[in-house]
């Protein structure tokens, strides 16, 4: 099962979305289920008033209301709230067009109405199995509507100030090499170094030494700093310095404020 949806624009720019798996979707659905129950409960209270006028109207309103709320909840929210329901919002999920284009009303309608089929024979069995088998984690409604459900994780950067605090970074004495390091290190390599630092206390001491030695060798091969700058620096400290350069582009006191993520995808 593929976990990312990659989209390449005609301009040659690629971006990707993390696809939501069946478990996260199931949890979102459970939240929505309780929200629908709450709405129905409120509706029952409101409809009771109609009962004073006509019991026939009251029962009819209850029946129609139940149907409209259970069917219309997903349709209305996903259309007016950019592909989100309350459950999806809580789990940071969002429905989007499978090609990254604008979500259309007929797509929202189809994916929601086909829940009737996806939920067969019980507990979304057909939808769940299809979701597991689909390369884009789509249930039948998603396939018919050409939609996917993606995950928008909240950026949770580790506290770099705490992680890197109190250490002199000798590499910063060479700004041109510092810039070259930023240029040559790929995003994945940077993330790997960061994760190694974040999880260093979980590692076995021997494995920890070996890992940081391997990482240091790799980063040293990308940019060669003058020997006097690096020769007395332990491998772990070297990686700490590298992460400091990669993730803190200015000295701590002058760190620029990064823009907030765009609303639609936040």
């Amino acid at each position, binding site marked *: 099962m593929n976990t990312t949806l990659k989209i390449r*624009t005609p*301009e040659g*720019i*690629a*971006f*990707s*979305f993390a696809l939501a798996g069946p478990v996260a979707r199931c949890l979102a659905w459970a939240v929505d289920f309780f929200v629908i129950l709450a709405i129905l409960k409120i509706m029952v209270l409101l409809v009771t008033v109609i009962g004073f006028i006509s019991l*026939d*109207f009251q*029962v*009819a*309103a209850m*029946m*129609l209301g139940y*149907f409209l709320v259970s069917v219309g909840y997903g349709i209305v929210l996903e259309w007016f709230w*950019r592909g989100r329901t309350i459950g999806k919002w809580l789990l940071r999920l969002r429905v989007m*067009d*499978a*090609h*990254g*284009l*604008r979500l*259309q*009303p*007929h*797509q929202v*309608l*189809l994916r929601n*109405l*086909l829940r*009737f*089929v996806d939920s067969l024979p019980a507990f979304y069995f057909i939808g769940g199995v299809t979701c597991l088998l689909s390369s884009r984690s789509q249930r*039948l409604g998603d*396939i*018919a*509507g*050409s939609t996917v459900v993606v995950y928008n994780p909240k*950026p949770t*950067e580790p506290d770099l100030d705490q992680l890197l605090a109190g250490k002199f970074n000798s590499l910063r004495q060479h700004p041109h090499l510092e*810039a070259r390091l*930023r*240029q040559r290190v*790929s*995003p994945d*390599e*940077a993330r790997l170094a960061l994760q190694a630092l974040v999880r260093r206390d979980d590692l076995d001491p021997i494995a920890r030494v070996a890992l940081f030695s391997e990482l240091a060798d790799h980063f040293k091969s990308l940019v060669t700093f003058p020997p006097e700058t690096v020769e007395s620096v332990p491998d772990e400290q070297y990686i700490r310095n590298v992460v400091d*350069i990669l*993730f803190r*582009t*200015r000295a701590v006191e002058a760190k*620029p404020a*990064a*823009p*907030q*993520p*765009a*609303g*639609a*995808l*936040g």
Partner: protein
Amino acid sequence: MIIDLPRFIDAERPTWTELEKLLDRLHEEPTRVMPLEEVQRFHLLYQKVSAELGRVATFACEPELRRYLESLTARAYAEIHETRERGRRFRPIHWFVNEFPRAFRRQSGAFAMAVIITVVGMLFGGLATTFDDEAKESIVPQQFAHLMGDPARRVAEEEKAKKDRMGGHHTYFASMLMVNNIRVSILTLGSGILFGIGTIIELFYNGVILGLVVVDYILAGQTMFMLGWLLPHGVIEIPAILVAGQGGLVLGKALIGYGDRASLDERLRGIGKDLMALICGFSGMLVWAGIVESFLSQYHEPMIHYWQKIVFGLMELSALIWFLYFRKIADPEDAP
């Protein structure tokens, strides 16, 4: 490539903010038509942000910045590369009365197929009840238990009734019929996702029950009662189920894709708007059928003459045929 990130952010932030504001405005006012200069500016901003993402994407630091630019590019991409029409001011009634018949006519082959499957089912049901006395008990589901008995006895009881059986329950009964029929029709359409097989089974089964009931009443010599009872709501309800079947078959055909060179995704995207129009169409028809069935179909002679109900049913059918086949429809309306 080496870039001075702080300076880069400071220099480009106005571009990002401008694009973000434009995107927000597009979302808030989907019917707004941008003037040419604004379109050109929008495109320029998109290209600039795309290029900046290209620069930052190869750059290890500032993952938050990269994510921000990705999200901005994705939103702008969705607006710029969307070739499906952007909705003008949505007029629901205008859309419904034009798009429903248009979709119906465009997919008329599937409707013909739905009719054939139902007729085959009716023939099967009719023959079964003609030649097998136990067919009714074994085929008719429990929810139609009132159809199990002898038609002549039922007619006699209905015609003898002095009290209004529906008195005080019309609205409830109508809403129950609407909800139940719309749910069944959605299922009929939706089960087309199983390569059309689910829809075919649903249509055939509906046909079997209909054929069984019709022949049962004809054999019992109660044709007038049956016509007076079924026609007022049936001429709308049965075509509505056929329209749902039509949608299911369209969906199944798009999935199979026989003789179509387009990809599965393209095929499904091609039928989306038609399916939406058909869904709205059969839902509207079933709301009407529910009202008629509750307020008219349940009344028989001597309260109301059968011929009056039959004429009413035929008038409805004529209006439906005119609406779906012959009414002049306006030029294609943009999607809502």
